């Protein structure tokens, strides 16, 4: 595996194993970079206003206000109150999904069959790591899938494709207020979103 860019960060340098998660408090103005260490790894991400987790990231407010489905540099990540939680300020991939949602045991059963019911899934990770910030099932919204490729077409179709990412590619966001970033490093084995082999991602933070 080639890592094309090696960076260190003073405030956060955390490797999140495949299938693990993280809850990171990013202060206003802080930058958080997510590095796809080995390529083609979906990083399922939710944002919350740290002052009030009811003010949660809203995928559909975000894409409507930018007039486009895919997220990239310049995308303002908005809440259900239309507050700007963060802005994507760096992106070496080019586009990211936010309408494909997260995997869950139950949605795996719907998509792939009963044999997948006890496979690990993002929704458990969100709930396990979110609990420390008071984030439960009611607070969960529809997430961002950094590094994931979910093409949509003018005839109204949607499907999952191989990722556009590659080892060392990254996305970076700058917090517009104090936020929680809740990440699930996707364990999905049943579609190409992780290249059929989930791998670690790295979180790098600069808070000032």
């Amino acid at each position, binding site marked *: 595996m080639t890592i094309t860019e090696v960076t260190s960060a003073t405030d956060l340098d955390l490797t999140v194993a495949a299938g693990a998660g993280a809850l990171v408090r990013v202060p206003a103005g802080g930058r958080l970079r997510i590095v796809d260490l080995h390529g083609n790894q979906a990083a399922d991400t939710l944002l919350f206003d740290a002052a009030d987790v009811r003010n949660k990231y809203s995928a559909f407010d975000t894409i409507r206000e930018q007039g486009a489905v895919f997220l990239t540099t310049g995308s303002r990540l908005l809440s259900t109150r239309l507050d700007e939680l963060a802005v994507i300020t760096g992106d070496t991939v080019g586009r990211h999904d936010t309408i494909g949602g997260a995997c869950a045991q139950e949605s795996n059963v719907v998509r792939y069959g009963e044999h997948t019911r006890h496979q690990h899934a993002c929704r458990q990770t969100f709930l396990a790591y979110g609990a420390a910030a008071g984030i439960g099932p009611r607070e969960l919204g529809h997430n961002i899938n950094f590094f994931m490729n979910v093409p*949509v077409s003018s005839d*109204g179709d949607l499907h999952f494709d191989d990722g556009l990412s590659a080892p060392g590619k990254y996305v970076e966001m700058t917090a517009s207020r104090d936020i929680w970033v809740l990440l699930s490093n996707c364990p999905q084995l049943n579609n190409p979103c992780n290249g059929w082999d989930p791998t670690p991602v790295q979180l790098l933070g600069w808070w000032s």
Partner: protein
Amino acid sequence: MSLYSHEISGGAAWSAPVRAGRTITLTALADGANCSALLLGADRVDRLNIPDTLKAQMSARIMAPMVLMSDRGLALASVTASSLDWHDCLGGFGHEAHLERFGPSTYGEDRNDWRRGARTGLVSELTKNGLDERDLHAPINFFSKVAISDDARASMTYVADHAQAGASVTLRTEQDVLVVFCTAPHPLDQGAYAPSPVRVVVDVASAVDQAVDASWTWRDESARALEMSRRVLA
């Protein structure tokens, strides 16, 4: 005779618990209607999950005979009939910010014609049911269309007058649900403020033959969600 029939005024919100095995038919009573809809399951925690509904059925729009799926992989309702082949589910609910161009609006000034975004109406109805803004989820904007371009960013463009008066859509409830509707304008509607009223009619659904039912036979994924609801809630 239907069980229930009600006209939701333009720009208003309404909610109701509806038992499993009912049809809910929405009819646009004027051109350019929009009806933003939330759907919660029998326990009021499980709720409509648009991303899961879309990816399981390989669609970026809502149409018949798709099954509307919950966070926990259960069928909440099936779209059993629709005069339109596209109902928006990417545009989200409108906010007061989308109505600012019409100037300020208050009850004191405008009485019951005051202009509010769908979010306000939806949260108001959620709150009546012991819920709150935490329970907001991506809505379906029935009767509206936001076209997607095949460009690099998948640009989104609102299609004006997608629905004409008389357009209708019918849902069949697959478990006991709470439906929340708001007829405020679609947030991308740049036209005059003229929200259409929508008639909602609830009736008893006819018996389902799984072998031929359009939703049960639509996709394996649709059938699995319906089967899980049947097993869990039968």
